[in-house]
């Protein structure tokens, strides 16, 4: 799957895209991902454990993310927690989804559904 075309996986579910965005700048464990998504969306998106790990399971299978052996968050380090990071393919898929959404936003602007910020 990791060698395939990123476009084949689009559109992504909101949960998957949020997880990819959360991992775009850092490796995180499950709760770290939830906190990052919550902070970035002003608390509007709250991923539950089932949603998060269901998404992670599918993302691991599709080669979008991988488990990391490193422990980047030394202060909050917990041997029991698994950390995840984006793969190159995951990064390309996230970029493709962002492009797709950006295209939709441009259409919405062209149809004056959005103000030009």
């Amino acid at each position, binding site marked *: 799957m990791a060698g395939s075309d990123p476009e084949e996986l689009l559109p992504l579910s909101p949960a998957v895209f949020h997880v990819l965005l959360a991992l775009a700048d850092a490796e995180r*464990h*499950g*709760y770290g991902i*939830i906190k990052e998504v919550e902070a970035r969306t002003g608390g509007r998106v*709250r991923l*539950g*454990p*089932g*949603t*998060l*790990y*269901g998404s*992670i*399971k599918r993302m691991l299978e599709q080669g979008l993310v991988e488990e990391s052996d490193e422990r980047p968050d030394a202060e909050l380090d*917990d041997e*029991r*927690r*698994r950390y995840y990071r984006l793969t190159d393919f995951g990064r390309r898929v996230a970029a493709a989804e962002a492009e797709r959404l950006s295209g939709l936003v441009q259409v919405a602007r062209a149809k004056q559904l959005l103000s030009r910020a």
Partner: protein
Amino acid sequence: MKTPERDVSRSRRAYALLLAAYPREFRRAYGREMALVFADRCRERARAGRGAAALVRVWGEALLDLALTAPREHLESFREGGGVMRTLRTVALALLAYAFTLLVVAPLYARNVGNLPAVVNSLLDALISTGLIFNFVFLLLTLTRWLEGVRAVRAALALTTLIVGALITLITVGGGPHAGLSLLIVVAQVLSLLFWFTVHLWWVLRRRGSAGPPAAAA
């Protein structure tokens, strides 16, 4: 504010029990992490909010999340397990047993209930009642992939024994037309349970033997 760590710990244990709603493979892979995440959420809310009362909201969210995601994981697990045909082969015996019990044994029993010797009567009665329960439990465990193979057969035996035992106790203690439960009926129930257990065990072991290494490993 002091964190009610005991409440968090209790909540985490209760949530860990609820994870049984997910397929076994999913639970094994992510159950511990999910419980950790849930505990983190509880701790954070308890610190920020109103102690134990804040946990109510966390629980509401967690239960909704569980209700929405557990069926999906079961569906995926079902597909990954080889799909409809594999599952049908696994539960074929239970389905056949159901058909045989309902279409052959039950009508035969109903038609001749007054003419049959007490021993045959009791055995047929037990075969039908335990068969319906045993096969239902086995089907439920297998189709949800909660347990499979020999484990599912053992669990079906244990649960059916519990249910039949409870029913016998209720009838005996509660009075009614069958209050004078004879030893014959109890023996018939036990023999029927062993019959269904043995037949299913044979089927499962036979399928395991013919499945080959990859399927057996799965």
